[in-house]
């Protein structure tokens, strides 16, 4: 059942929010032990919130467009009084004294937080295997990963634990798990959605975005969370342009570019679905041509300098002095070192070291400085492509969901999971993954739609057309 249907029923008094929550909790009780989508299920809190919504409906109030809709929250979004762990030992037990802007907006719209979802520790990974609390399994094939880092949110939506979820996307962490779990995942324009209360991984790349089972539900959640927030200096001023009204506009006359550089290293069965998506858009009235974004080739390299550099600084504060884990030692310096050694997992430590190195005196220009130049080149090449076309199309992930352990021994192989998604983060552009059939293994394939800054509406139009073509 879609979020739209639930909210419509609850607002009209046809169903109680409490019933909706109980149904979802029942589904969670059934499959969560196997899947581990959540770090924490907020059963009591969700019931209390649902009862309050029902009370308001009975009193004649309108609780809002998400009335009674369960929403799963990635566990790197701060929730007042509720543990927020980032799936890291170092934050185990920490309860933020404040709530993220997006979470407040969802509550104000009548949404019900149903749980905090699992992730790769501090959102660093592409399989959710880097969680300190154990991996999440893919609901469509529990022997496979759900993708990452927002694997718990993607799995929660795919398993019907919640019709909607929030994730964060720094290099593909919403889109890639959405593709692997067969749901819709959106990375908005940088600055379209407030980051206030999102525990930072790489501040200049992080964006919060929605997961949903269909395009219209994703649009509903996007429209609710987008818009200026004075608490985030990088938030774009002014009201966001709603995407829901654009969903039915079709793609007639839209120009779509197939990105040449995003075909290398992609599995053949995935590429076949990308081509099928192009054909479907063409059939719906769009024109399709091949375009080049040459600098995108260097995206992965630049990303693995910029993101770890920012992370090395963002994660410095976990030092055992103020909150979270503390491992006692003889003096403050040793206490900090012992705490960080015990509290961070291997991948987090690897990236902190990479980033620290990239920013070091004597290496800054060669690494971080050069990566910033690549970043500007990618934006320039995207701009050139968007002179010719309105949207770009590519695969989201090079493959369908892979098996546990398949890439953990080789970090570089894991990093390649994000080769098609990273350029959008570097450019600050919006992009989304839409399910478009299955691969040779019968598992879902997601195709990626990329758009220029703040052209989410155009992107959603094409997404709706692809979804329509699959019906």
């Amino acid at each position: 059942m879609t979020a739209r249907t639930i909210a419509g029923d609850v607002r009209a008094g046809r169903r109680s929010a409490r019933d909706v929550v109980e149904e979802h909790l029942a589904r969670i009780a059934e499959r969560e032990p196997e899947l581990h989508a959540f770090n924490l299920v907020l059963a009591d809190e969700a019931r209390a919130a649902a009862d309050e919504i029902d009370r308001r409906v009975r009193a004649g109030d309108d609780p809002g467009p998400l009335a009674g809709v369960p929403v799963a929250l990635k566990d790197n979004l701060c929730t007042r009084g509720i543990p927020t762990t980032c799936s890291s030992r170092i934050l185990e037990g920490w309860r933020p004294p404040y709530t993220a802007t997006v979470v407040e907006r969802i509550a104000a719209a009548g949404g019900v937080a149903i749980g905090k979802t699992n992730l790769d520790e501090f959102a660093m990974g592409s399989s959710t295997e880097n969680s300190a609390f154990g991996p999440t399994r893919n609901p469509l094939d529990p022997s496979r990963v759900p993708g990452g880092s927002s694997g718990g949110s993607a799995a929660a939506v795919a398993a019907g634990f919640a019709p909607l979820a929030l994730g964060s996307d720094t290099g593909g962490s919403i889109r890639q798990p959405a593709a692997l779990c067969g749901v819709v995942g959106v990375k908005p324009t940088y600055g379209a959605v407030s980051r206030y209360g999102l525990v930072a991984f790489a501040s200049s790349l992080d964006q919060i975005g929605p997961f949903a089972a269909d395009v219209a539900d994703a649009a509903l959640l996007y429209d609710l969370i987008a818009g200026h927030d004075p608490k985030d200096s990088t938030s774009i001023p002014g009201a966001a342009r709603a995407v829901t009204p654009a969903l039915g506009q079709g793609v007639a006359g839209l120009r779509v570019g197939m990105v040449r550089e995003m075909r290398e290293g992609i599995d053949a069965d995935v590429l076949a679905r990308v081509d099928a998506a192009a054909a479907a858009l063409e059939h719906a009235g769009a024109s399709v041509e091949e375009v080049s974004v040459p600098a995108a080739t260097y995206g992965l390299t630049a990303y693995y300098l910029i993101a770890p550099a920012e992370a090395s600084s963002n994660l410095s504060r976990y030092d055992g002095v103020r909150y979270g884990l503390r491992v006692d030692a003889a003096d403050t310096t040793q206490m900090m070192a012992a705490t960080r050694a015990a509290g961070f997992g291997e991948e987090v430590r690897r990236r902190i070291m990479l980033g620290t190195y990239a920013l070091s005196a004597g290496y800054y220009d060669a690494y971080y400085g050069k990566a910033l130049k690549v970043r500007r080149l990618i934006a320039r090449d995207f701009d050139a492509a968007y002179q010719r076309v309105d949207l770009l199309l590519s695969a989201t992930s090079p493959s369908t969901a892979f098996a546990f352990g398949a890439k953990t021994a080789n970090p570089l192989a894991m990093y390649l999971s994000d080769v098609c998604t990273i350029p959008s983060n570097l450019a600050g552009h919006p992009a989304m993954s839409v399910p478009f059939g299955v691969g040779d293994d019968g598992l879902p394939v997601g195709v990626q739609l990329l758009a220029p800054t703040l052209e989410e509406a155009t992107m959603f139009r094409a997404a709706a057309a692809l979804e329509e073509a699959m019906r």
Partner: protein
Amino acid sequence: MTDVLPGGWEMVVGLEVHAELHTATKIFCSCPNRFGDEPNTNVCPVCLGLPGSLPVLNRQVVELAIRLGEALHCEVRPSVFHRKNYFYPDMPKDYQVSQYDQPINTQGWLELPSGKRIGITRAHLEEDTGKSVHEGTTGRLHGSEGSLVDYNRAGVPLLEIVGEPDIADPDEARQYVTELRAILLATGVSDAKMEEGSMRVDANVSVRRAGEPFGTRCEIKNLNSIRSLGRAIEYEARRQVDLLESGGRVRQETRHWDEGDGRTHTLRVKEDADDYRYFPEPDLVPVAPDAEWLGRVMASLPMLPAARRARLADLAGLAHDAEAVVLVVDRGQDELVLATVEAGGDIARTMVHVEHNLAPDAAIAPARLAALTRLEVAGTLTATQAKQVLADIVAAGGDADPAQVAADRGFEAMDTSALEAAVDAAIAAQPDAWAKYCGGEEKAAGALVGAVMKATKGQADGKAVTALLQARRG
């Protein structure tokens, strides 16, 4: 300047001043910027650097930074915040948001009363850290039983004002800090209290033989007063000269001034350059004050101390660094002098009264002070009488008529015959003194004048008495 160093040696001093900005709230959040509150009461997720929190730049901070930039003749430019990364328990994020290669103010200067200009390399914005309190007897880390951190100060806005190494002796260093403090106060940028730490000074000191390149410098910390600053620089420069003259070498290090033993001590040695891994702060956007904003700030600046000294000195016919001029401007009494002269007062007598006879907070109507000086110039009141009349006027609230006050005190000017009689009486009483005076010994007049003054209870005009003596000598 006194010769602080042995012949052939000179010192090179550059000062770094941290000034806390006088804002209502902190630099990146809405917590109060207030000194002396209970520990950890002025804190929030942002200034505690809690995960997920984000900074939002306080507009007033930028405004004050521009004020100081304009006052120090800096180039005020579009600027960028960077992160300075290092681990320290009183720094909530383990990085400090500061400005690096694109500071808001660059390339300015500060003019000392002597007219010498000290270059200002930059004056950039940054956030303050919290404060560690070490439990135990000494209050310092060594030997303490445990440490507590107070984050009330974390996120307090700072300007770091980096001066060029243009300072040549302790006296200039004192003048520089005094002048900078006066500018910070005049512009309302900071309350600049060294004792509360809202103005903190570090000194970079090196020595060299005249004409040689710069020597190795040491940075001196813990300078909590202008007096300490001068003493520490003098000690440190001598220490370095002694070291070099005895064949040693100066090691680049940070040294701690101990007010108790009057020495500097090694705090830490800089073996390698610190690597703070600066990079642009991605949570903030660049600050680009437009011309309109800059113009508005410029227009709202008050007259600065140097200009006020020049104005007063020119009026009084004194040098710009004359002690009276520096003192009167420093006390903020130059406006009173100007208004008094405007009201027809005598500038020389006004300066004397303001410098010596009026407390900085004493209230007096300029017209009354002007009238008082006119009575003096006319010979109606002597200097001594005027001083007493002035004290009475101030005690009465500052707006009494000096002629009336003088009359009330019985300070009528003596008529000439009474004065002549007193002079003749003094001559008769002291024939020896009179003989010496007549013999050309001018000093002998002193005893005679003194006798007249005593006889008239100080109401005689000393100049008139001298004139009568000269007339009688012939």
